[in-house]
């Protein structure tokens, strides 16, 4: 009783702490705020990421000044008229709009007009008061092209070998779809030839040349071995150039066949443009398409996104190389970091003598987790690439050094994985240490009591029992590593890699770097926005999947190890 009274007698603040109910509300609302923020972020990314591939309707606007603007409506908003608005219009129209100008407020819409190569703009703002007529024309088509920005317009005529074969929107559409599939498959074939067949020949040539140089370095410029190697190289080169000629011939034939077909398109305001059919990635007329065919377009965009190479400075097409690079790099990193982390944690927890030295090491490791990741990038570049990589090159690739062609003395997927392994090492060590210390001492004693040695105890009892915790740490490290960008920019992630990183010294593409690159380095950031969101969504899904696997695995193992029924 006296306790209660003395608490009540205290100042307001003390009473508040005594009863503590407000704290429930404070802590509760803080949690709600956190959850809302996270959910809001996820919902936003999810919505933007899921919706960007959905084909939007196309609208055509006729304006008071007789201009015609057609495209996708992206933003509708009210705005404050700037000084001198409508100044470029005729005085007649300006007079008509006078009340709005004096009012000072109006509505406007942003239309994605595309047709950059005809009009020089990607987007147009239209004041709502200027619109005289609005329609959804049936045959207005949205066309995605290989090397240029999308095009919006009406199919006008189909041209074969420079001769108009059919005219009219429907006829052109039908004629196009008769040949589109085979043209696209010819294009795919051509690209495969360029990428793989020619690429392989190039590699073969380099290897032969490097071998000759190696022989020269070993046995001297004038030696018989070098002469023989040079001869071998010359004959290989001749053969390779012959093979390349054949392939180039094939490619030319495919090109020629494809260049026969052109489609003439007309924009909303009457300009026409002839577009080679080979340039068309996808064409659809959203206003006449039903839900079914829209879904088809949506899915085919996702498919392209996940499995294809990027186009047009990465702002279009797919992200398959980045996805592949991220996964391979993360797996490599995991292969490095887990054994090291677990062994280090084992030593610290099971063998090292407790004392100031161990505490210092532990603090140092925890601090490592707080070091900005770019610092690891600098270390990776300065030490791993330039010192370790240099040593590797000197030892194993003398010919490349002679030709000043670094192999490992530059960023690459292996060095990136090493750098990230260093970065995620604290995560694994801390998680493993925690898992090890959670193994009940009674189990260790039981094992020693049976006459087991220290290592037997660790190997047979401690490690299996701490596996769930180690796995959790591993997956957390993977998630951390998969999402890291800054250090990768220094040690091998590139904007565009010609080939998938199938050898350890190759540079690679990465989802996180891809997002960064698209957001800041694209000439036309609005057009790249959809890619940014879908790539972000993909990265988040990847990290979430890793985390879900971790949780399920841990729960499963925990069930195996922790049942206590008494």
């Amino acid at each position: 009783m006296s306790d209660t009274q003395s608490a009540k007698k205290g100042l307001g603040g003390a009473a508040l702490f005594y009863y503590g109910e407000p704290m429930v509300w404070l802590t509760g609302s803080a949690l709600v705020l956190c959850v809302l923020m996270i959910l809001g972020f996820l919902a936003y990314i999810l919505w933007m990421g899921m919706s960007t591939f959905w084909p939007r309707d196309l609208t055509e606007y006729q304006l008071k000044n007789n201009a015609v603007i057609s495209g996708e409506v992206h933003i509708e908003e009210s705005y404050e008229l700037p000084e001198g608005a409508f100044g470029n219009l005729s005085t007649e129209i300006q007079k008509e709009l006078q009340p709005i100008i004096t009012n000072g407020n109006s509505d406007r819409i942003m239309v994605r007009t595309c047709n950059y190569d005809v009009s020089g703009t990607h987007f147009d703002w239209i004041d709502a008061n200027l619109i005289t007529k609005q329609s959804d024309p049936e045959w207005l088509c949205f066309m995605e092209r290989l090397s240029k920005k999308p095009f919006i317009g009406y199919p006008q005529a189909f041209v074969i070998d420079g001769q108009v074969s059919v005219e009219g929107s429907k006829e052109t559409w039908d004629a196009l779809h008769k040949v589109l599939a085979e043209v696209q498959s010819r294009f795919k074939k051509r690209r495969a030839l360029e990428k793989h067949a020619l690429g392989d020949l190039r590699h073969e040539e380099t290897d032969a040349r490097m071998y000759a140089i190696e022989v020269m370095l070993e046995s001297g410029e004038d030696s018989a071995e070098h002469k023989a190697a040079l001869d071998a190289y010359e004959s290989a080169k001749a053969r390779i150039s012959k093979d390349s000629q054949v392939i180039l011939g094939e490619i030319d034939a495919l090109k020629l066949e494809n260049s026969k077909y052109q489609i003439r398109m007309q924009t909303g305001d009457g300009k026409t443009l002839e577009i080679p059919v080979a340039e068309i990635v996808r064409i659809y007329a959203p206003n006449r398409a039903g839900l079914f065919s829209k879904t088809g377009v949506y899915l085919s965009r996702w498919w392209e996104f996940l499995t294809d190479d990027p186009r047009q400075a990465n702002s279009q097409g797919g992200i398959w190389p980045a996805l592949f690079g991220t996964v391979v790099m993360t797996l490599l990193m995991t292969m490095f970091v887990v054994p090291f982390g677990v062994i280090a944690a084992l030593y610290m927890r099971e063998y090292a003598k407790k004392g100031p030295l161990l505490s210092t090491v532990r603090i140092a490791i925890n601090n490592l987790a707080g070091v900005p990741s770019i610092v690891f990038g600098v270390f990776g570049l300065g030490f791993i690439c330039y010192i370790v990589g240099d040593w590797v090159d000197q030892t194993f690739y003398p010919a490349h050094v002679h030709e000043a062609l670094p192999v490992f003395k530059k960023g690459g997927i292996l060095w990136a994985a090493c750098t990230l392994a260093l970065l995620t090492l604290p995560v694994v060590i801390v998680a493993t240490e925690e898992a090890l210390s959670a193994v009940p001492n009674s189990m260790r004693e039981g094992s020693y009591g049976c006459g087991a040695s220290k290592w037997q105890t660790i190997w047979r009892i401690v490690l299996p029992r701490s596996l769930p915790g180690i796995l959790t740490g591993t997956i957390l490290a993977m998630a951390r590593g998969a999402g890291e960008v800054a250090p990768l920019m220094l040690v091998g992630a590139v904007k565009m890699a010609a080939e998938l990183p199938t050898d350890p010294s190759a540079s690679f593409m990465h989802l996180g770097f891809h997002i960064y690159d698209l957001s800041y380095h694209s000439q036309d950031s609005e057009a790249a926005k959809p890619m940014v969101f879908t790539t972000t969504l993909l990265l988040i899904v990847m990290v979430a999947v890793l985390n879900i696997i971790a949780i399920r695995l841990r729960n499963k193992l925990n069930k195996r190890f922790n049942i206590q029924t008494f």
Partner: protein
Amino acid sequence: MPQDTKSIVKAIANGEEVGSHIHKALDDVDPILSVENFNLHYGEKQALFNNNMVIPSMQITALIGPSGCGKSTLLRSVNRMNDLIDIVRISGDMKLNGESIYDPNVDVIELRKRMGMVFQKPNPFPMSIFENVVYPLRISGERNKARLEEVCERSLRKAAIWDEVKDRLDENALGMSGGQQQRLCIARAIASDPEVLLMDEPCSALDPIATGKIEELIHELKGSYTVLIVTHNMQQAARASDFTAFMYLGRLIEYGPTSDIFTNPHLHDTGEYVSGRFG
């Protein structure tokens, strides 16, 4: 024999040297283990004072005494489990079958393999029942499946748990009840046919029925194993053991046949303790 009414408690409090009262019956037993002038310090704190005792072969010996008197410490000294604690220092020696336990040349791991240990709380390993039982053989490198199976069955039978688990040897041992787990731990402790079985309050975490089963089991082990058991339960000591040692503040106070200790102790203090009037 008349009771010595001089209080040991007071003597120790006064800092007097107190010797152990060892009953005559222990003079002509066949000792398997002998403790000789054994002292043990935890850092600065001395936990065992000049202990001398012999453990008779193939008999059950109980260690009793108030909490903190050093029973567990003495028991853990027998298979050198105290080596695992950095701050422990010892002097004196113990001998197993006449061979020194604390000689610097002794291989601790080999030594521990010659003894089995059962702990206060059941501590099965996170693996199958089968693997738990054959663990001591596994770590000695035994690979022969038939032999492992034979040992598993024999140990589980001796531990009176074979019938309960014979159909689920592959299941995880952590899914068993506490009493079953403790019997499993006993099976594990006897799997490699130890010369001495050390038990530290094996029933303290169990309910009366499980306790009864374990006691019965201990009784059955008599004759085939030498058992050294720590217990807080006077009835248990009285029922299950052949000899009883009463310890107090790190000293061995009185040691003799169980019937004498419980019905006719030499020391007044021992009588007080076993009848529950002190401790």
